[in-house]
């Protein structure tokens, strides 16, 4: 078993992880298909202050993209932790209650409808995906509520069926879409990063950071709920309220992440498990460490996605599954003896 968690250990571990994340982000910003020199990127030495290509690539392409990957990774990992705790199911991930298919359906509708406006710098795909994601979670949550006040199974089944139904609708739209529309959605459905405006990053980062902090506040209650509803209720935890808050916040940050980068799979499933295997199941620690680890993981995966087939790029979802899968299996074999699974 893991030693008991003191606030000192928590602080040290979080600080170390945060420093690691900064280091990883800096390193990854300097790696890319084009070789850039840091000196000329920061120097702006060209005549009449025109930015050098190196500067432009670093500041306008790489840094926004690395920031985006970090935000999305953190959001998915944090909400993965919460979904696994609330559903008491190790297979849960941020997409399990229909976020993915709802967002995918929204995105497909935007593409097939041929919409082309922008709202605050976001394309119709992003706006529709965000709406679809939140709408679907709300629908599934509503159905789950009808099936029984504390019935996790009802909620899970509703999620699975809604996912399947919306996936079928996505397939229908795919089959009638034009071939070049398919390229756009295919990449979106596999998770795809581009450089974003700083304003978009600012707002998205704000939403995600605030969400993760809110979830962290709920950590102690999540610890109790993940053991069992009845126990939690009996010692006076307002289970229904906490659950609703945690679901709403994690669905919100997942929807933000999805609308920024499409459906990046696997991060929300394996990062929480990996952190749990390494450091134990306490949610006060699991949340910050998973967020930071998820950010690191996605920044690295996205750098690989940028590099492997350069100057073209892979959808980052392909990379997360390909690096994440084997890495996670190794961890599982190595550490599973000393772990407590949320059941």
């Amino acid at each position, binding site marked *: 078993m893991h030693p008991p968690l003191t606030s000192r250990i928590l602080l040290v571990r979080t600080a170390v992880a945060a420093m690691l994340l900064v280091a990883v982000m800096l390193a990854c910003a300097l790696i890319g298909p084009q070789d850039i020199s840091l000196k000329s990127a920061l120097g702006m030495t060209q005549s009449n202050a025109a930015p050098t*290509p190196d500067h432009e690539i670093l500041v306008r392409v790489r840094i926004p993209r690395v920031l985006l990957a970090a935000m999305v990774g953190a959001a998915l990992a944090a909400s993965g932790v919460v979904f696994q705790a609330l559903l008491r199911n190790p297979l849960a991930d941020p997409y399990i209650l229909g976020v993915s298919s709802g967002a995918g359906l929204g995105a497909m509708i935007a593409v097939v409808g041929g919409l082309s406006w922008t709202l*605050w710098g976001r394309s119709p795909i992003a706006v529709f995906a965000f709406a679809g994601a939140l709408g679907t979670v709300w629908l599934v949550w509503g159905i789950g509520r009808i099936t029984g006040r504390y019935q996790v199974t009802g909620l899970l089944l509703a999620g699975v069926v809604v996912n399947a139904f919306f996936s079928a609708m996505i397939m229908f739209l795919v089959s009638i879409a034009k071939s*070049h529309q398919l390229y*756009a959605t295919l990449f979106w459905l596999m998770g795809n990063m581009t450089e974003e*405006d700083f304003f978009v990053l600012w707002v998205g980062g704000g*939403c995600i950071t605030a969400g993760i902090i809110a979830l962290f506040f709920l950590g102690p209650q999540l610890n109790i709920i993940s053991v069992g509803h009845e126990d939690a209720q009996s010692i006076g935890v307002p289970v229904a309220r906490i659950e609703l808050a945690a679901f709403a916040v994690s669905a919100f940050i997942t929807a933000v992440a999805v609308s920024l980068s499409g459906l990046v799979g696997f991060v929300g499933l394996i990062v929480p498990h990996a952190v749990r295997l390494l450091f134990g199941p306490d949610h006060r620690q699991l949340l910050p460490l998973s967020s930071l680890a998820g950010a690191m993981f996605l920044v690295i995966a996205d750098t690989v996605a940028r590099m492997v087939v350069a100057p073209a790029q892979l959808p980052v979802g392909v990379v997360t599954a390909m690096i994440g899968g084997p890495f996670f299996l190794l961890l599982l074999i190595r550490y599973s003896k000393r772990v407590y699974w949320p059941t």
Partner: protein
Amino acid sequence: MSRWWFLSAAFVLWIVSGLALVRLPADERIRSRSDQVPPRIVSMAPNLTEILFALGLGERVVGVTQDSDYPAAAASKPRVGTFWQPGVEAVIALRPDLVVTLAFEQQQEFSRRLGRMGYSRLMVNIETITGLFDAIVAVGKAAGASGQAEMLCANMRTEINQIRSATASNQPVKVLWVVQREPLRVAGRDTFVNEMIELAGGENAIGPTLHKYPPVGAEQVIAARPEVIIEPAMLPSVLDQQRRQALEYWNRFANVPAVTTGRIHVIDGDTVSRLSPRLPAGIRTIARCLRPDSFGE
């Protein structure tokens, strides 16, 4: 409860200060003046590369996409990714004065991204033959080669008219244009291939459909009664192999006229699968499949 208030307040403050500090993206800041002739052009699709070279601008093309293989000189230009997964860093590194893109979603988004960084770009929509001619004129205008563009269009039109007038008095030949064999997918009416077939003196055997390239069943093929079946091959190197497989596959449709008369053509897809200045050559290839006697081998 106070920490929740604190978090909410911090969040609101963050968003508000974002509105004040970072502001909404300012689109359309054009770096180079548009009345100048752009000396460095990047092409984001193989047919755009062909247009630029046909306008005599090959020297000024500094970057092309991976599949730009025609003319031969284009193949030696620096690569900037594929036309559906372009690499933004590669484009920036080339310092282009003009980036020419197509208008479908992926490229529209790419063009928007470059626009946010102040690059001047031209977006052309090439999905029909009219679109191709408009695009040639637009590219010519943006690159300071309007004269060449007019001439190129005129030459192409003359050549197309020649082919068309040679078959104008004849009954159109019913053609099934096979995009993919298993599962079977053919070109529908609302495609540029359909336009090419009609200019070559043919008629699409498939009627109007919901899809641009509809998946069809055996029943529809038999009912359509095509007189000629044409399959464009993706690569010249697999032409013979594909021809063998096609003959074997189509043998199962013994009642289809094209099969009984053996008029199944597997052709090099190069000129007929992209709308480029080589359009007349593509139409001629199709006309040859439809009427071997009047267009000769």
